[in-house]
Each structure stands twice: as structure tokens, then as C-alpha cells.
């Protein structure tokens, strides 16, 4: 087995990658502070975070789903549906009860996802793709593709206004929830069992953990969070629209993955997600300030994402992988040769 000694297999490098979230965040903040005057001021931070609050709520739900080794693409559609319920029912039920119905929509949608994946045994990528199409179509059907307006634009203003000169309402809600998630994941037995389920549901089942219940719960949680996001977001603009939330899921997944949670399941962290979200928030703020066109912003986000998962691969598993261009080339050439070499270099995950 050839273990090349170079920068990618050194301990320093691995330390770097393990703390990559902090490093990327620091780098982003430094770049932001260089190009944007007033970037490090509190007000900028507060606004940037407010911008990310809705995304962050969805990302909290996705963190749990990804740790459980699954995917949920339907968050955006659930957000739209919850928002429509929250605003559309205001006239009949009043604002607060309507908001609760919106929340209920999220919970119900999550339960449907759970049913599809756990009971019908449909792969979560396909199942949540189907439910995404279904919920989105439902939103359009109910509203005839037109946005619905609430009865009072001042009602929901509180969530997007700074409270006591600090963070906005929805930012605070987000912070509370993500810290609660972090505590649950790291301190509670159930949280740790979730990691086990995500790593290998069959063996978790064998050691007495009710994997199926955890997986179902993960989807209900994700749906609920999307519902919370939908309620808050629609109240903040006093509008429920069938086209809201269209791009939110993929960016949320990016934030969660930048934060270190892996799509394969079994590994992740709420604080990592927070770091990923802060990075995206800082990047967006800095780039928008400089009128950087949206497609360039997309390149930057994509490069960071790719860089991070590539680096992550170098520290994954028991074998330190060498991903220098030279090593990749060697691997490509050697795959043509005998099976002995193939078995030696083969490392499947």
C-alpha cells in the first residue's frame, strides 16, 4: 500500500480540515471586511443574519435528516404551503390560529414524507422529489397560482424588526432552535442514537434502536421546521405565495454540507450547520454589496462547497486519501491494470 507522505496526509493538514468550518468562516469574514465598509458592524451582522433566518430554519430540519442518512427535497414546497395556510386563513380564523394551522401543515407534510420513506420503503431522494412536486402543485391549485395577501401588513413586522436593538425576531427564534438541536444531538441519548441510525440503520436496529421510528421522526421534524419557516416568512411579508421557497432547499443543503454534515449519514453537527449558514450569509452580504452578479455568487458558493467536500474526503474513513492531482491520475491509470492492484487501492464507502 503506497502511503505517500505529502502535504495532504500530514497531521497539520488534517487538523486544518477538521476545523474547516471555522477557517472558511474566518476567511469569509476577512474578505468581507476588506471589501465592504462597515461589514463588521453589528447592524450589518444583524441584517445579514436576518436574511439567513428563513434558510436557517429549513437547514435545521435538513441537518437532522442528513444525519439520519436521508434527503428531503420538499422543504421549499412545504414552506410555500404553510405560508399560504397561514395567510389565507387569517380572515376566517384570525392571525394566530391561522399561523398554528400553517405549522400543522408542516407537521402533516413531514408525516407524509415519513410514510413514503419508512412505510412504503421508497428511497428518500425519489420520495421527497415526488412530494415536492405534489405539494408545490397543491399550492398552485389552492391559490390558482396567485399570491394571497394577509389582512394586516403590520402584524408580522415584529419578526423582521430588531428587538431591543439586537437581532430580529426570526433570528432569535433560529438561534434558540439551533442551540436546542445542538444540545439534543450531543447530550441526549436519542440524539446519539440518531447518529447510529444514520450510519447503519440495519445494525442499529439489531442493537435495539427503533430505526424506523427515528427515520419517520426525522422527516416529521424536517417538515415541521419547513412549516415554521413558512409561517414566519409569510407573516414577515404578509403574503402567501405558491412560488415561495423554490430555491431554498438546495442552498440549505449546501450550508449543511459546508458545515460538515455528510450526505452518507452518521456524521454531522448543528454548530457546523450554523457555521455553514454564517459563511453563506457573510458571502451573500459581501457580494451583494459589491453588486456582484448572481451568477458569480453562484460560482463562489459552488467552489467553496466542492472544495470542502473534496477536503473532507481526505480525512474520511480509516485511510487517509490522497487527492493530489498526481494521485488521482495514478489511480485512473492503475484501474486499467490487474485486479490485485484494484483490490489494494479500492476503498469503497
Amino acid at each position, binding site marked *: 500500500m503506497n502511503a505517500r507522505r505529502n502535504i495532504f496526509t500530514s497531521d497539520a493538514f488534517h487538523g486544518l480540515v477538521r476545523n474547516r468550518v471555522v477557517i472558511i468562516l474566518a476567511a469569509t469574514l476577512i474578505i468581507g471586511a476588506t471589501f465592504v465598509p462597515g461589514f463588521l458592524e453589528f447592524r450589518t451582522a444583524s441584517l445579514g443574519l436576518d436574511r439567513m433566518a428563513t434558510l436557517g430554519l429549513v437547514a435545521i430540519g435538513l441537518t437532522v435528516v442528513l444525519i439520519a442518512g436521508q434527503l428531503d427535497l420538499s422543504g421549499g414546497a412545504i414552506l410555500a404551503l404553510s405560508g399560504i395556510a397561514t395567510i389565507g386563513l387569517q380572515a376566517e380564523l384570525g392571525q394566530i390560529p391561522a399561523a398554528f394551522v400553517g405549522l400543522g401543515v408542516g407537521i402533516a407534510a413531514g408525516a407524509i414524507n415519513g410514510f413514503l420513506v419508512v412505510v412504503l420503503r421508497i428511497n428518500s431522494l425519489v420520495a421527497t422529489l415526488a412530494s415536492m412536486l405534489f405539494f408545490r402543485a397543491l399550492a398552485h391549485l389552492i391559490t390558482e397560482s396567485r399570491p394571497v395577501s394577509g389582512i394586516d401588513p403590520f402584524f408580522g413586522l415584529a419578526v423582521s424588526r430588531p428587538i431591543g436593538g439586537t437581532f430580529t425576531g426570526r433570528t432569535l427564534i433560529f438561534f434558540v432552535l439551533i442551540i436546542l438541536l445542538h444540545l439534543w444531538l450531543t447530550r441526549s441519548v436519542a440524539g446519539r442514537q440518531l447518529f447510529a441510525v444514520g450510519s447503519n440503520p440495519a445494525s442499529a436496529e439489531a442493537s435495539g434502536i427503533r430505526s424506523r421510528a427515528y427515520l419517520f421522526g426525522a422527516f416529521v421534524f424536517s417538515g415541521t421546521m419547513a412549516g415554521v419557516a413558512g409561517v414566519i416568512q409569510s407573516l414577515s411579508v404578509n403574503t402567501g405565495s405558491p412560488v415561495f421557497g423554490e430555491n431554498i432547499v438546495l442552498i440549505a443543503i449546501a450550508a449543511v454540507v459546508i458545515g460538515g454534515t455528510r450526505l452518507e449519514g452518521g456524521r454531522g453537527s448543528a454548530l457546523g450547520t450554523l457555521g455553514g449558514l454564517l459563511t453563506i450569509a457573510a458571502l451573500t452580504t459581501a457580494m451583494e454589496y459589491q453588486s456582484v452578479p448572481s451568477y458569480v455568487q453562484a460560482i463562489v*458558493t459552488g467552489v467553496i462547497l466542492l472544495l470542502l467536500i473534496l477536503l473532507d474526503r481526505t480525512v474520511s474513513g480509516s485511510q487517509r486519501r490522497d487527492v493530489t492531482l498526481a494521485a488521482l491520475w495514478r489511480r485512473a491509470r492503475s484501474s486499467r491494470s490487474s485486479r490485485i492492484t484494484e483490490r489494494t487501492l479500492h476503498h469503497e*464507502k
Partner: protein
Amino acid sequence: MTTPVPPPPGRTINRGLFSHYGARLGLPAGILVTLIAGALVSDRFLTVQNLTNVLINMSIIGIIVVGMTFVFVTRGLADLSVPATVAVGGLLVLGLESSIGTIPAAIVGVLAAAIAGGINGWLIGYAGLNPVITTLASGTIVLGIAQVFVGGVIVYGDNTEAQAFLTGRVFGVVPVIVLIFLAVVVIGHLVLSRSMLGRWSYAVGSNPSATGASAVPVKRVRAIAFLMTGTLSGFSGVLLGITLQTARPGIGTGYEFDAITAVVVGGVSLLGGSGTVLYAFGGLLFVQLLTNIMVLLGVPTEPQGLVKGALIVGAVAIDVALRRRGGRE
């Protein structure tokens, strides 16, 4: 990779003729039922014009579906960079048309998309990255670069001859673009079912570790699936650009999910190792026919998703149930 749900304890295995053939007959039967239902619903349905229209609607997405089938079969999960490679094809063919001519511009467009697909393949097949997140990231990057290249605006073409050629008809009936689509389907099917690459693809998809111990080049096969999808998407983007004579960056939005829908409804498993290009073609045909019926019934575009979503769930649930009955897991 999304982990599968563990089986409930105490499951019994049931074999039978119905479970073995049921999966294979289901889709053709469904298509037949749809044709009958369509004829009953509207007298415009079974006209040559309408059915030709269905085929035209299928053509662009159909070329992409062929590539996506390979991705599924090799257990590559999904290629989410399709909107980007489609856009690259469309933007480049029209952007370079005036300087180097339509055919060379088309070749450049397809090549650029192929390079993107090749990078995907490299990262997923050789570096072992997760396909979902990798194609997501690479798609965003590639689309962004393509937009930088054309200056972030809509690109207009002025080659109406090429446009007329593609939308024109052979023998006055079959549109050229449909012929191209069918040719790609046939070639794709032959490659997957008859060639060495096809056999390797099935092997890689059904049992990667065992296959890795044999002489099959697992990583290369995985990589080729993504290279293929990127190239085919770029090709369909080129065709789309020429037919529209305008290309904007969002030109391919949603095509990845449409392709996945078709492949899944056709019975090709996400977990790899089974299914054929013809299955995927059948799935696409079924979805398009249903969509056509909904259009004739006056169902607005967006709510059609209700049926599509239900269709996916139905198709996969039946497939999963039949697999368990048939002893495959």
C-alpha cells in the same frame, strides 16, 4: 448516498410468476390504458398531429433521460447538474454561432458540456465524492461560468435555416428532432444492453465491492455514466438553443427532475443494477401522455404536478412491493 430503510422483522419471501412478470407488464399496460383513456376524453387525442406533438415535447428531455438511465444503473444516484450542461450547450451554440458558424459552435457547446460531465465523473468515480452534492456544486459553477462567458444576458441567434431544419419534418410527418431523439434512444439502449460497457454498468450498480474484486473497472464505469449524461445534456441544450434561437441561463431548469421522474416511473431502480433504456423511454412516454391528457382537459400547468407526484409514488411503491415479493431486495 441515502441509506435504505431496514426491513421490518419477520418478513416472508414470496415468489411467483405474477411478481416476476408483473413489473415488466405494468408499464406497457399503463401506456395502453392511457391511450384508451385519452381517446375517450378528447377527440383530438388520437390524431397524428397531437401524437406527433407529444413526441416533440419528449425529444429534448428524452435525450437527457438516456444519460440519466446510465447514472441510475451504475448506482450514481442522480445527476443534478443537468440544467447547467443544457444551458452551456444552448448558450454556447448561439453565442459562438456568428463567429464560427453553427456546426462548429454546436460542437464547442457539446464539448464544453462533456468536459463538465467528465469533471463530475472524475470527482464521483475516482475521488469517491457523493454524487448528489457534487453534481449540485459543479452545476452551479458551470452555469455561472457559462453566464460569465456570454456576459450574463440572453443570447440570440439568427440562423433560421438551422431552426427550420430541426423543426421541419421528414416525409411531411416525422419531425427531424424526434428522429434524432429516437436515434439516441436506440443507440443508448444498444450500448446498455449489448456492449461491454453496458454489462459492466449493471455489475457496478448491483454489487460494487464484489465487482471491484473482479476485472471490471468500477471507477471508470461510474465516471463514464456522468460523462455521458453531461454530453447528452449538452447536446440536447444545443438542439434546444437552435430550435428556440434564444438561450437564457435558466433554459434547462427543472429538466433534471423531469428526467428522474421518467426514469423512476419507467421502473429503473435508484439502487442500481437493473432497468433498461427502453424502460426509461416507456416511463417518459407514459408521463408525457398523461400530461397531454391533462392539457386537453384544461388542467393548468402547475397543478399537473399532483399527478406526476402521485405517479412517482405509485410506480416506485409497486416496484418495491413486487421486488420484495420476488425475493430481490
